[in-house]
């Protein structure tokens, strides 16, 4: 893929996440989406930078704030929206909801409602690739809070011993629900924890899609070449609450406004405009295309049936 095409794809993917999430927030407020919604708005550069460095056959594991990861890895907005609505046509037949979307065909091994639960799954997927020698890598999205869980330490330890092809990508958005990082750990850079496992630990600007892409690309090359795992910490921020409805009494409006000024999409858009890769007409074209995709996803979800009550115990494996 030529560089310009790659940059336009990155921009489009970030915008697709933003518009999808904005619609989800709106629909949730209208009571159309049941359960919880954790918005990814503001963190788009991490998902897109990371997934742009992966092959379609590579794996990802996601989190409770996973919509952005899934879209960046190629998830279909129609099936995602249907799942959020709890409809039978959704990715998990409407029984998983926002926090459990998976599509194995796309290498998406699942969002996960349990903090830190994706780490051992990604490590297991990497072990599978390693044993099968199929060249696939696994990339695990997780957050700052998850890095305090036992699964983080066990996964990094095991992956480092066996030199597994896995990239641990910490989206450090500074808060574990409402707890600021400084109250939850005595370090400020989670990448520092890499040294405990003898692997590289890198900090990148999580609002710079190119910075994330460059770091993940190098980590992927290293993993495919048998070099083992890498821990990457992308510093970023969510613009909305931990969940929709979160009153956010633990942070100030000024702090949120500061991060809005660092909007990863606007930043990349301005750069591409300056370089002549994008122009206003092209931006309009992309916006219109995404608006149609989102509209179609909502229509598909609303017109789809709910699962039947007798299907409740189907596909249950535990």
């Amino acid at each position, binding site marked *: 893929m030529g560089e310009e095409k790659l940059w336009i794809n990155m921009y489009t993917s970030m915008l697709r996440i933003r518009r999808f999430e904005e619609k989800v927030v709106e629909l949730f407020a209208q009571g159309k989406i049941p359960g919880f919604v954790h918005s990814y708005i503001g963190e788009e550069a991490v998902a897109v930078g990371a997934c742009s460095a992966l092959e379609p056959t590579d794996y990802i594991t996601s989190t409770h704030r996973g919509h952005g990861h899934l879209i960046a890895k190629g998830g279909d907005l129609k099936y995602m929206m249907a799942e959020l609505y709890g409809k039978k046509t959704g990715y998990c037949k409407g029984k998983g909801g926002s926090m459990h979307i998976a599509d194995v065909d796309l290498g998406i091994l699942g969002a996960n409602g349990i903090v830190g639960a994706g780490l051992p799954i990604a490590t297991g997927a990497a072990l599978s690739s390693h044993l099968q020698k199929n060249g696939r890598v696994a990339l695990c999205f997780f957050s700052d809070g998850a890095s305090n869980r036992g699964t983080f330490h066990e996964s990094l330890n095991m992956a480092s011993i066996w030199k597994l092809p896995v990239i641990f990508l910490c989206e450090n958005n500074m808060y574990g629900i409402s707890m600021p990082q400084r109250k939850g750990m005595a370090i400020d*850079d989670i990448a520092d924890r890499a040294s405990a496992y003898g692997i590289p630990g890198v900090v*990148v600007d999580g609002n710079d899609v190119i910075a994330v892409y460059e770091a993940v690309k190098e980590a992927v090359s290293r993993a495919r070449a048998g070099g083992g795992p*890498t821990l*990457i910490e992308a510093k970023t921020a969510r613009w909305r609450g931990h969940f929709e409805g979160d009153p956010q009494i633990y942070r100030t409006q000024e702090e949120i406004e500061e991060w809005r000024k660092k909007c990863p999409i606007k930043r990349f858009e301005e750069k591409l405009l*300056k370089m002549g890769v994008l122009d206003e007409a092209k931006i309009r074209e992309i916006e219109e295309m995404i608006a149609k995709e989102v509209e179609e996803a909502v229509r598909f979800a609303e017109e789809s049936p709910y699962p039947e009550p007798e299907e409740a115990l189907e596909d249950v494996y535990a």
Partner: protein
Amino acid sequence: MSRIGIIANPASGKDIRRLVAHGSVFDNNEKVNIVKRMLSVFEEVGIKEVIFMPDYFQIGWRALKSLGKVNMEVGIIDMDVEFTQNDSTKAASILERCGVDCLITLGGDGTNRVVAKGLSPCSEVPLLPISTGTNNVFPYMVEGTVAALAAAAIAKGVVGKEEGCYRAKRVELLRGGDVVDIALVDLVALDCSFIGSKAIWHPEEIKEVFSTVAKPDSIGASSIAGYLIPTDELDDRGIYVKLGEAGKKLYAPLVPGVVKEVFVESFSEIPLDEKYKLSLSRGVIALDGEREIEFSEENWEVRVTRNGPLVIDIKKTLKLASERRFLRS
């Protein structure tokens, strides 16, 4: 009154060089440990006051808290903190105005560059730069205790600035005749589009290098000329290297543990203060190893000057201090 300022960069030692090279991970608790060792030395040798830059990891405060009571004044600069490299620039400027007798930095080439930006050109504040990583040319890879002794010898006047320091060179980036940025080691023009993750590790992107030094025993873009025209801090010249596919092949340690081939089209000494135009019309300018400026215009000029900070020569200072019975009862 002997006062020492300390700027410890909590963000140094974490960038992509840990991945693309074999750069060490330098965690902030180790920086706290270095500061603790230095504070202990300062207390022992009778330094009156230490002033820290505030930072998000609170390196100075943690060191102090860990040591408990110390027999000297310790303060933190009262300044608005952005948690960016601007903090180091601002802190350097404030510490210079405060009249500190010595300024110690913990960081890499990048940290010292932004500190030097905060100091006035040809500042008289003696600078003692301590490296907290493996990828640096400007700061010393030195034990904090030894560095603290040299800093104390200068701050207490045991060794005069004119005896124990040298005036560093710097590369100045000019636009419309004005200095818009500086580098202490090298300015590199890269044929690429983004600042991105900042580090330089693709040699094919390097088109021009302007450097203050070219040493076979150092690392980074300035090392390319290290085997062609070795040049150190005291030589009154800068070095220019032009790279391109048609050039002669040689190998250079661009990042830790990675010796890569580069193709040198031409190289030359450049007299101090002489201006040169960048030949690239668009690309990215890297300063001291970090991509900093994306540019798409042709009116950029570069010169090497002797306007850098006053840097403490640790070995020379401690040798003179020893001759003057420093540390003897």
